[in-house]
């Protein structure tokens, strides 16, 4: 049997230009979409990593603050303290000392800037709180709320909130031991 190329007709021979173009366009479109998606994914991954770093920074600072005593609210420290101008936290002895602490980039207690955190900032707010509602109050109720925020630029990446009460006392820290 003779199968002449003419039997298929010229319009059936090989891949037409139109088909090629359509195929290329489809693949190109998908490729662009994929690259765009990968870029977005990469960006989201970067933001997730930033948030993890920010959470670690917040954890670090709030742990440091929770190691401090409550101090007494009638002392004027809370009302007038503004730690935003401080460069280190070595002399801090109570929660009040941390009120309005701010540093950018984040710093260790001795004031050394943490490397790899350019653009990050940490801030602390200490407020009195009502023990029943935990709402802010201006009077002493024996409760202070500690808020640590970590930002990159103006973007809030992490926020931690904890309470410290006047009743808190680590027995081992106050020199007390247990009678057996």
């Amino acid at each position, binding site marked *: 049997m003779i199968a002449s190329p003419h039997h298929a007709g010229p319009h059936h021979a090989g891949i037409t230009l139109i088909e090629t173009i359509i195929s290329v366009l489809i693949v190109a479109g998908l490729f662009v979409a994929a690259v765009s*998606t990968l870029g977005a994914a990469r960006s989201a991954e970067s933001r997730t990593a930033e948030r993890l770093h920010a959470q670690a920074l917040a*954890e670090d600072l709030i742990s440091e603050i929770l190691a401090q005593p409550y101090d007494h609210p009638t002392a004027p420290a809370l009302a007038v303290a503004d730690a935003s101008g401080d460069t280190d936290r070595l002399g801090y002895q109570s929660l009040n000392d941390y009120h309005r602490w701010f540093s950018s980039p984040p710093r260790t207690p001795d004031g050394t800037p943490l490397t790899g955190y350019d653009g990050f900032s940490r801030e602390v707010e200490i407020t009195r709180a009502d023990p029943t509602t935990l709402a802010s109050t201006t009077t002493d109720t024996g409760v202070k709320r500690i808020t640590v925020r970590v930002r990159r630029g103006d973007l809030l990446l992490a926020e931690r909130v904890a309470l410290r009460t006047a009743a808190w006392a680590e027995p081992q820290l106050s020199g007390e031991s247990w009678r057996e």
Partner: protein
Amino acid sequence: MDQRITNHPRATAPGATDKRSPRSLSVTAASSPHRRCRGSVYIAVLGASMLVTLIGVSAVMAVRVQGREAEAARSAAAARDHARSAIELALLETRTNPDWANDGDWRPARSIGRGWLTYRFEPDGAGLDDDDATVWIVGVGAEDDALRVTRVAARRRANLPDANWVANSDMSRGSLGWELFYPDDELEYTTQSQTAGQGSLMMRHLGGNFVGLTQDLETIPAAGETFDVAADVRLRDSETTLVRFGLLLTYPDNSQQLVIAAFNADDSWRRLQTAVTPLYTTDPIRASVIVLVIDDISAVLVDNVHFQPRRDRHQLVPVPATWRQDTF
């Protein structure tokens, strides 16, 4: 393309003559050549599309998983903070509410951050109202889908051993650590036996007022906190007078505040005790416990001076190394 056309001129070896009739030539193709070409392209395009889509979707899914993990870690940490804060609120309640032991139910949940917290007191065997029993404080914190439970054992502060802030309180080392309130007065150490057989410290009066002993405290008492002060006091001779003792606070401007109580003393040993509550509004730089007599008497004997934070029986204190955190 695997099309094989045997009558194509280029299929014949160079110089060779093809003796076969053109009509006898056969064209062999593995299948329909053109459809196969077109199908292959479609399959290639489809495969590439699926591959690219798969890569994109996988990346998105991976990022979503990472994001959820990060958010779950954040929520868990926040819930843990809330649970620990609940423990602090429970300890505060034992200080401010003497009847806390009458209620073993969960306290009303309170909003904090993006979550909430609550707590309760659980007896460890005996009832909550048993002063000698251990009590478990259970704090619960939640944020988003994370829930954390923290518990710590606590005992009543009254069960803690004495923590006397006064050094050489029983005068077993003579006058070490003690000094006269007015240095010009004369201080004598006497070996007169106390009930327990220990020595005491005698202040002999030489004519002035405010004869007394004082000792600087290494720890500055916290304002607003109540302290118990006690001392064994007697007059050497058969007299009766007022003995005052308490706390003397000195401020940065050298002003002083006396938180003091007065008791009658005579020639028999008496255990005098009271409570003082400093209510200053600025931080003192020095705190001294003092025992004074103002009246003109010959000599006062002092022993077993005690100064310590008040230990209300209802106030709980956490037991070290009993923190437990349950995770879900």
